Structures are given as structure tokens and as C-alpha cells.
């Protein structure tokens, strides 16, 4: 029995429409409760003059698995940049863009985050992802599973057998102990199997006679047929190419007619920093964030995240194999590729985003423009697509940029003039408030993932007692002017509380409990499953390099699982 009372904080809990009210938050046995009697054993945190928010939730980050580890192995130079010694309660840390697993957990917790989702897991490599999850302390985790170039998916789409497709999605989530459907450059991964790519939504995937558009709509239908808590999560075709905003908008349009099976978006399109681009080449490259935001302002079936670029080192990692090779050739840098049989591709390319290189400057602006030009704060999540746009430890920088037009102006003064000419950023006066930030860093993440009913992203009764308390008084700080103060406060929360336990204080780890892993177990009609298994048995016998019996992630790999049930009605 542990009790904790957070007194007199200024609470921002957007899911419960609480906007800065002075309130007490009571915690009992790891959950938020309506009220607790103040017994002598109750620990009290005086949060007067401080901001209280639900623990941060990150719906899109690359924190574990084969790609992340490839990044570590190929970049010992990154490893040495974040060295921290072992302490009495923490394991040693390393890395900046690709921290070791321990640092991953500690740094998120120190930043006030308590739940983080890994955004790209090939089913075949899911065991590895869970092994790393097991070594990421403190935070709760879940993972999105790659389906976009999967043979079984493309065949079912080609046959227009959405029931079988749904059965495969359900099976794949179960096999990988995964949470949701991720689609990366649909069809492109397969084309990359022979060194090619797909050129757009309606290009035919070689050898499979389907188009990216058909893969996306097919998976969206299957996703809704299964009532999955999260929508499809999509990395669009042509990402990383000038002019791709058209494809991005076209992709959004493609899904207008699909009805969500629950109260959420139909599609989440990720890291807009990399696909709201105009121009036809790197010479006339420009931002088209305004066009994308216009579309978002008129449609509510789409949510997006920023994937904000952070100047300095990044390690790009994605299932978009062909894009990564193009990157590596363009930048003449290291390149790791990891095609996954029958399922997908991947690439890892370390790079640096450099101020005054106008392409990088424009990319930097795109993420901010999307966030600021889209009116509904719930529609755009704050992310850096860690570590693609930059490491997650820079979220406070992004928060300060969103809250302060002055900070943006200061930053723009260090950038190229082309950036001003080719983006709308300098004309945007909008400054987000604390409530908006609470939405963009936790509430909306949880809502978009479908986790609010599972205790995440809010401070209502029975929610997980994941709470962050920031050393900043919204009455006294004008975020627009005092952006440095804001950034500092978000860099070192006074308290991060996970399941009712203080895990970090003022940037120091105080406890290292093990987090949970969310996964979705969706049921499908037996007959669909029977048809599916017939296909899969053949695939394993002939084409996979391992047997079906050794494929599924065994339960022993999933520490503290939380199984969310789904399935057709």
C-alpha cells in the first residue's frame, strides 16, 4: 500500500479538460484515485507553483531492436558522446543519437516520459526488440509492427481478401507481441529486394501486382475490421523526396471514405518533417507544410507527428530501404541495410543536420510549420522521430520553439535566407500554450494510440499514476519571452512519477522499476485463420529461412505484459 499526494499543482490534463486548475492529485497503489484520506504514511509532494501533467507518452520513437542496435554497432563515435558512469542505482550509459538501452529508459524518465512506443518492428526480428525492451528500465513500452511490404499482406490485398488480411494482421501482432500496424513506404520494401523502389501510390509493386494505394487501403480496412486500438501508422511513399507533399495529401485522401471502428483517426501519418516537401529537386526544394496543414484543417480522419529536425547529429533508421541508400549515396556516408525476408527492408544512415545548409534549414521549418499551421492541437504530435530528426532528449527545445515566436525568430536568424523564402515559418505568430503542450506530448499520443482507456495520457481516476511535475509557474513565466526558462524546466522535471513511484527528481534517477509491455491480441473467425495458416505453412516451408515453430515471440521475452484484446464484433 503506497499513497502519494501531489498538492496544489497547476494541473494540465487535456483528456479530462483540465486546463491549469490548482488541484491535488492523489495516488494509491500505483493508480490515480479520486481522493485518499491523508494518513500519516502518505507521502506528500508540494507542487505549488509547479505544473503537473500526466507522464509523457511518445507514440513514435525508435528505441529498440535490430535497426537501433545496428546504429549502435556502426557508430561507436556516437556511443562515446553520451558516456555516464555506473552509479549505485543506475547502469552505465552511452550514446546520444543511439543510447544504450539503460540510457534510453533513464533519459526518457528524466525528461518526464513514462510510456514510449517503438515505431518499426519486423515480425521476424520482434524477439530482438523485446530483448531490448527488457533492458530499457522504468518506462512502459509497446511496438508497431511492419506490414507494408509483407508478401502475405500483398497477396491478400491482390486477392482482395480483407478477412484473410485481417487474420494475418492479428496473427502478426500475436507472433511479434506487437501493438499496431505500421506501414513504411508500402511496396517499396519489396521492390528494394531487387534494388528498386515504387514511384508513387499507383505504381505496381514488382512481382506482386498490387499498388501502394491498395496496400494502404487494404490494411486500413483490416485494421478497422479488427477494431485495433490504434489506426494504421503510415510512413508515406516517396518520403525524403522533393515534391512528396502531393503523395502525402493523396494518401490522406485515399482514406477519407474509411470509417474508423473506434473514436480515433483512420490513419496516423508520421514524421511530416520528411514528407511535406515541395519542389522538384534539391535545387528548388521548398516547404509545402502549408498545403498539408490546409488539408489537415479540413479533415479529421488523419493525425500526424512532427518528426522535428534537430540540428546536430542524428542517426536515421527506417524500414524505407531504398530511401536510405539514396541518402547514403547523396551524403557519401556509412550505410547499413537490412532486408528482412518476405517482410520488409531497412536502412540505417548516420548524418548531421547543419545550420545554414538550406535543405536542412527548410526541413527544420517544415515540422514546426505543420505543428503551428494545423489548428487542432490534437492532430499533430510532438516528436523528433527519434533518432531520425534528432534524439528525443531535445523535446524541450521543440516545446520552446512551439511556445515562443521569439525563439523561432532567434533561431531563424542563424539560418539561411532561402529558408525564409521557401517556408512560411517567419510569418507564423502562433504560440502554443501549456495546455497545447500537454496535448502534444502526452494526451494526444495516448489518444491516438488508443491507450487512454488503458490508463495512459491522463490523470483521471484509475489511470496509471504516471505524473510529471515541472519546476515552472505558468502565472509567472511568459513562455513567449522566457523560452529559455521553459526549455530548462522541461529538460529537468522536478519529479517524474511512474506507477506512483518517484523515478526521477531534478534530472536524477531515483528508482528503476521495470516497465510493462503493451500488445494487442485480436481474435478473428476460425475459418479466416484456417485459410491463413495454409498460406503461412507453405511460406515457412518454402521461403522463410526458419521454421514456423521457431518464429513466434515466446512469452518469456515479454516482461510484464499488458494484453489488450481486440477483434471483429
Amino acid at each position, binding site marked *: 500500500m503506497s499513497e502519494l499526494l501531489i498538492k496544489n499543482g497547476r494541473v494540465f490534463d487535456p483528456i479530462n479538460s483540465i486546463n491549469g486548475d490548482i488541484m491535488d492529485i492523489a495516488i494509491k497503489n500505483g493508480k490515480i484515485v479520486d481522493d485518499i484520506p491523508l494518513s500519516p504514511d502518505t507521502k506528500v509532494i508540494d507542487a505549488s507553483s509547479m505544473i503537473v501533467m500526466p507522464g509523457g507518452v511518445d507514440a513514435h520513437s525508435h528505441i529498440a531492436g535490430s535497426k537501433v542496435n545496428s546504429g549502435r554497432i*556502426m*557508430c*561507436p*563515435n*556516437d556511443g*562515446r558522446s553520451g558516456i555516464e558512469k555506473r552509479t549505485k542505482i543506475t547502469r552505465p550509459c552511452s550514446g546520444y543519437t543511439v543510447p544504450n538501452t539503460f540510457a534510453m529508459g533513464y533519459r526518457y524518465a528524466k525528461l518526464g516520459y513514462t510510456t514510449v512506443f517503438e515505431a518499426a518492428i519486423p515480425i521476424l526480428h520482434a524477439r530482438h526488440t523485446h530483448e531490448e525492451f527488457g533492458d530499457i528500465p522504468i518506462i512502459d513500452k509497446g511496438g508497431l509492427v511492419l506490414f507494408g511490404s509483407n508478401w502475405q499482406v500483398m497477396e491478400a490485398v491482390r486477392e482482395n481478401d480483407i478477412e484473410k488480411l485481417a487474420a494475418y494482421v492479428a496473427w502478426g501482432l500475436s507472433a511479434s507481441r506487437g501493438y499496431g500496424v505500421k506501414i513504411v513506404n508500402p511496396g517499396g520494401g519489396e521492390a528494394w529486394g531487387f534494388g528498386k523502389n515504387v514511384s508513387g501510390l499507383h505504381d505496381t509493386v514488382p512481382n506482386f501486382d498490387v499498388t501502394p494505394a491498395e496496400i494502404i487501403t487494404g490494411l486500413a480496412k483490416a485494421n478497422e475490421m479488427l477494431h485495433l486500438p490504434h489506426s494504421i501508422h503510415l510512413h508515406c511513399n516517396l518520403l525524403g523526396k522533393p515534391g512528396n507533399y502531393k503523395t502525402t495529401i493523396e494518401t490522406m485522401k485515399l482514406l477519407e471514405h474509411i470509417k474508423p471502428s473506434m473514436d480515433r483517426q483512420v490513419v496516423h501519418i508520421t514524421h511530416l518533417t520528411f514528407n511535406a516537401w515541395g519542389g522538384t529537386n534539391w535545387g528548388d526544394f521548398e516547404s509545402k507544410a502549408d498545403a498539408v496543414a490546409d488539408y489537415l484543417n479540413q479533415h479529421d480522419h488523419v493525425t500526424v507527428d512532427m518528426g522535428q529536425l534537430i540540428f546536430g547529429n542524428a542517426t536515421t533508421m527506417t524500414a524505407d530501404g531504398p530511401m536510405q541508400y539514396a541518402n547514403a549515396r547523396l551524403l*557519401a*556516408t556509412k550505410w547499413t541495410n537490412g532486408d528482412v525476408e518476405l517482410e520488409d527492408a531497412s536502412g540505417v544512415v548516420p548524418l548531421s543536420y547543419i545550420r545554414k545548409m538550406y535543405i536542412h534549414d527548410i526541413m527544420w521549418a517544415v515540422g514546426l510549420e505543420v505543428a503551428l499551421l494545423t489548428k487542432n492541437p490534437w492532430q499533430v504530435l510532438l516528436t523528433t522521430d527519434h533518432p531520425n530528426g534528432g534524439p528525443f532528449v531535445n523535446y524541450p527545445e521543440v516545446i520552446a520553439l512551439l511556445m515562443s515566436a521569439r525563439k523561432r525568430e532567434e533561431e531563424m536568424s542563424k539560418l539561411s535566407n532561402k529558408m525564409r523564402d521557401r517556408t512560411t515559418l517567419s510569418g507564423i505568430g502562433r504560440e502554443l500554450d501549456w495546455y497545447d503542450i500537454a496535448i502534444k506530448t502526452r494526451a494526444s499520443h495516448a489518444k491516438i494510440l488508443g491507450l487512454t482507456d488503458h490508463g495512459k495520457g491522463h490523470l483521471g481516476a484509475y489511470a496509471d499514476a504516471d505524473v510529471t511535475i515541472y519546476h515552472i509557474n505558468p502565472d509567472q513565466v511568459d513562455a513567449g519571452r522566457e523560452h529559455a526558462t521553459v526549455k530548462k524546466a522541461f529538460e529537468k522535471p522536478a519529479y517524474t512519477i511512474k506507477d506512483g513511484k518517484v523515478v526521477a527528481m531534478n534530472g536524477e534517477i531515483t528508482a528503476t522499476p521495470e516497465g510493462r509491455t503493451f500488445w494487442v491480441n485480436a481474435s478473428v473467425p476460425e475459418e479466416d485463420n484456417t485459410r491463413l495458416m495454409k498460406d503461412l505453412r507453405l511460406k515457412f516451408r518454402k521461403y522463410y529461412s526458419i521454421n514456423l515453430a521457431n518464429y513466434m515471440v515466446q512469452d518469456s521475452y515479454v516482461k510484464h505484459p499488458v494484453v489488450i484484446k481486440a477483434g471483429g464484433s
Partner: protein
Amino acid sequence: MQTVTLTPIIQSKISIEAETITPDNFAGKTREEIENITIWEGNHKTRLFEFFKIALEGKDSPENTKIIINGSIPRVKRVGEGMTDGMILINGDVDMHVGAKMQGGVITVKGNADSWAGREMKGGEIIIGGDAGYYLGAGYRGESCGMRGGKIIVFGDVKDYAGEHICGGEILIKGSAGLMPGISNNGGIITIEGNTEMPGAEMKKGTIKINGVVETLVPSYKQEDDEEIDGIVYNKYTGDVVAGGKGSLYIKK
């Protein structure tokens, strides 16, 4: 002027990590303070006086601080790491990473220096009277840049990968060099008076000049017209073409 003399009293078998031995760190300190400076013997944290007898004269700023190591310290690593000014004189051999990340000042090694001497050096000068080991003036694993500035002179021979990833600065080797000196050269100048093997592979920019015999040249250099430098006629090559390189490789005719 401040002069600190360190006389080795024990030769440790385990390498001592002593990145704390720099003029920057010694300047202005008393003898007792210097004696108590932290060094590491494996996993054991210890202090300078456990391994050195220390004599001190004067008290001054880093630029006017001279450290004399009176004897060989073949198991003391990282001496002079990151130093910005002043002088270190080692009257004998020194272990790995001497002058790593050095930014200024002068290090003189009378004897031999082990591998990674002048790793990622940015400025200053390292003079090695004897031989040097592997990776002289090179980089760290996975980094794209090794030495960026300053000068290293080795009077003896050096082993493989001298100046790997060098991006600036100058290395002069009076003796012979091992395999692949100046591999991935991206803007540094390397001169080898003696012989070497497979110089300059993947060179992008910079210059490598060899006055001795080159055992093997990688087959991806373009031969240009001969050039005369300081009265010596050289075969001139540019490359490495597989890296899109425009480096210059001079081999004495």
C-alpha cells in the same frame, strides 16, 4: 615559468590512464595538489604520487608550464590529452594516446610512443624521437575525422594506418611507415622519408609524399605528369578515384 618534474618510481604492469598529466591541469598547483591528482591503474583509482616522485619549481599559467617526465613510462597512457598550451618532455618511451586531442603546446618524446599518438589532434606539436606505433595522428573508431591540425614529427619508423582519416595538419615521418598511411586522407599532409605500403587508399583530399620505396600502390590512382618538389622528381598520382578523391600522392622516382 613553472617546471614540474615527474620521476617514475614504479613501473606498473597495468597501464596507467593519466589524461590528467597536462600543463593545463598542473599550472598554478602546489606540489601537494599535483601529487594528489587522480590517475587510474586498471579499475583502481589512485594518485600521481603512487607512481611518481614529483618536484616543482615556480608557479605559472599553462603556457609557461613545463612538465618533464624523467624516464620511460611505457605503461602510462593519455599523457597530454587535450592540452592547450605549455610543454611536456618525456625522457623515454610513452604508452598509447600521447597527445590525443591536443590543441596546443609541444610534447617531446625522446623515446618511442605507442599507438594512437596524436589521435584527433587539433593543434600544437608532437615530436617523437624514436618510433611510433599504430594509428599515429589517426581518428577514433567510427569517426570520419582523425587529426585536424597541428604537426607530428617522428624520427623513427611508424606502424600501420598513420594519419587514418586525417582531415588537416601535418605528419612528417623520417623513417618508414607501415601499411596504408593516410588512408581516407581528407585534407592532411603526410610526408614519409622512408618506405611504405599501399599509401593513401580512399584518399579524398590532401597530400601524401613518399621519398622511399612504395611496395604496393592500390590500383585506383590516376598517374599524372611528373612533378619536381625541392629538387626531387616525383611520380604524381591523384585519387583515390573509387572514393571520388582528388588527393595528391607523390612517390619519388
